[in-house]
């Protein structure tokens, strides 16, 4: 079952761009950017270039999930904020990732969060899936992924930024984040440790989100939005309990402005 198809190694180059424009200059701008892919069993990051609005004085830190972030403070007035993160990766080195994290992560990732906590709708849907007829975390995860597109549609307008899984399922439409939250909620109802993953997919678009499930000591990636197993076309950037652990960008500043923020991601074969 777990060897559906062993991946082929791919060499990819990627570019993440964030361009923000403010209607008038802002000051005291604190920012955190968490979009720095790192090496895993599946992928190797060969080069990584970071460019933040000509700003060189940023700090580096990482969190408990091993996600790296860069952050800083721009005090001077500015009306643009541009981030470019680019590099080259080798993917498909493996289809799974060994579970080496500290043992508490296991319990933590079985626990529902505010965004994944089930309500009536999810509990009902979970019951209808009859997952207890399946044995093993992998088969359960696969079944959840395969059946979700039947009741949930892709729609970029339907849900809010911090939508809960319960609300999204009730609406019946949403984006990759909502697919991932619903799948996480269902897995955690089965006491299966699972985490939210953010990353990039081959092609042009924006950042993507999927789910990683712990099966027999290994993390496997499931992409419920595309109903696909995560393979060499994916580069993972960060992971956490839900989307709130993986915010790509956070910022705060002084200024009464409207902002126009655009994010583009491009991944292509070398």
């Amino acid at each position: 079952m777990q060897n559906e198809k062993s991946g082929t190694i791919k060499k990819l180059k990627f570019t993440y761009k964030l361009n923000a424009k403010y209607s008038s200059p802002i000051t005291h701008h604190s920012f955190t950017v968490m979009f720095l892919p790192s090496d895993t069993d599946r992928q190797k990051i060969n080069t990584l270039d970071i460019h933040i609005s000509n700003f060189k004085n940023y700090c580096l830190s990482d969190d408990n999930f091993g996600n790296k972030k860069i952050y800083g403070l721009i005090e001077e007035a500015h009306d643009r904020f541009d981030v470019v993160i680019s590099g080259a990766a080798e993917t498909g080195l493996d289809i799974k990732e060994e579970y080496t994290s500290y043992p508490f992560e296991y319990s933590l990732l079985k626990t529902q969060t505010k965004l994944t906590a089930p309500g009536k709708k999810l509990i009902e849907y979970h019951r209808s899936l009859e997952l207890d007829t399946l044995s093993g975390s992998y088969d359960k995860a696969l079944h959840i992924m395969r059946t979700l597109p039947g009741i949930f549609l892709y729609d970029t307008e339907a849900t809010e930024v911090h939508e809960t899984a319960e609300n999204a399922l009730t609406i019946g439409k949403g984006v990759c984040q909502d697919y991932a939250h619903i799948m996480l909620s269902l897995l955690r109802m089965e006491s299966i440790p699972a985490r939210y993953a953010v990353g990039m997919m081959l092609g042009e678009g924006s950042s993507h989100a999927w789910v990683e499930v712990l099966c027999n000591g290994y993390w496997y990636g499931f992409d419920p939005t595309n109903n696909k197993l995560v393979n060499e076309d994916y580069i993972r950037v960060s992971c956490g309990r839900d989307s709130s652990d993986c915010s790509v960008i956070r910022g705060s500043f002084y200024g009464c402005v409207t902002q126009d923020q655009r994010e583009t991601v491009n991944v292509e074969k070398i």
Partner: protein
Amino acid sequence: MKDLISNAETINKLLARYGVKFGIYKNGEFKEQLFPFDPIPRIIEHNEYIHLEKGLKQRVNALNCFLSDIYGNKRIVTDGVIPEEFIYSAKGFLTPCDGVAPPKNIYSHISGIDLVQSKDDNWYILEDNLRVPSGASYPMIARELQRRSAPDVFSYNSVVDNRNYADLLKEVMDYVNTGGINVILSPGRYNAAFFEHSYLAEKTGAVLTTGRDIICENDNVYYIDYNGKKQRVGAVYRRISDEYLDPMTFYEESVIGIPHIFEAYKKGNVALLNAPGNGVADDKGIYYFVPKMIRYYLGEDALLMNAPTYLPYYKNDMRYVLDNFDKLVIKDVAEAGGYGVVFGNSLTKEKKEKFITLLKSEPRRFIAQEVIDFYDLNILDETGNKVPRKADLRAFVLTNGDTKVWPSGLTRFSRNPDSFIVNSSQGGGFKDTWVLSR
């Protein structure tokens, strides 16, 4: 004593004049109300205080051990003393704090422990407040004013001098300070306890500030004074809750926090009092386990008792709670300030059934306790008559290298004769607390 009673009105007037107020939000509106002072003090005998002091130190020491363990190796979980569900599902368990050791490894620097005395004279712990416990300033200023109006009363009655709170607090800040000034970080003028923030800043010599005057740069924290001069900050006594402390790590919409202060803290460049993440230890569900913690970490029996508590999470306890529902008080573990408290016998049949369904579906969310028959304290009513009212005591315990109990405390009482809830946010009043030296 007569002097104190005859001066009560003047003291209340002065308290109003000094701005000793308590702000509350009701229906989205900010209202300030006076915190009424009652002149009849609570008196704690010397021997009784010695016992309380020992018990409080023990409790706070164990709670600090627990926090250090939970954000470290989690031995108490792996050894099966506390089920993991009570840790990871607790609202106060903050994953970013996992693995982060605060300066000098102290988590709860200022602890507010709420106790009540029952009619059988035993003291029971009602709850621990290890996040941002407030209230020390009220008895401080009330004592200060009373000393002015009746200077002899205190030495005549052998009352322990309690004017050392600010010194104790300053010692704690200095002890964990990583190099730089001490500041008290307030959300600002419209916070419920703004009087206290400004009063404590004045008394400890710390700089009173809001997030606007503080910046983080290259993982260091700086205070910018009115001249634009930058000073390094070594300790922040923050009166802002964890969620609002740093919009870059916690609640992103917070405008009262300081961006990236958590990173500076993580790298050991600033002390935060109290440490973020303490909410996991004063969770009402964890309360049940504190006597077990004392045994586990200190190898001692708890000197101060918990109110008899049941966790519906355990099957036997659930059965007990259902069988004795009418004589118990049920608390929602996620609520504070006297909210989310239900007395079993106060519910109509219909509401009771509804509540029991909820209890069964979310057992981890509730605890049930026996109702303690409080020992009433007399207060003066509007006509000058003494009437008994329910009262509790918030003891303040400060931890630097050593753990010290402030020989005083905040005695709060309910003005409503039928109410057991004494929280200031629910409109109660307060008294001075006398600890006798012999």
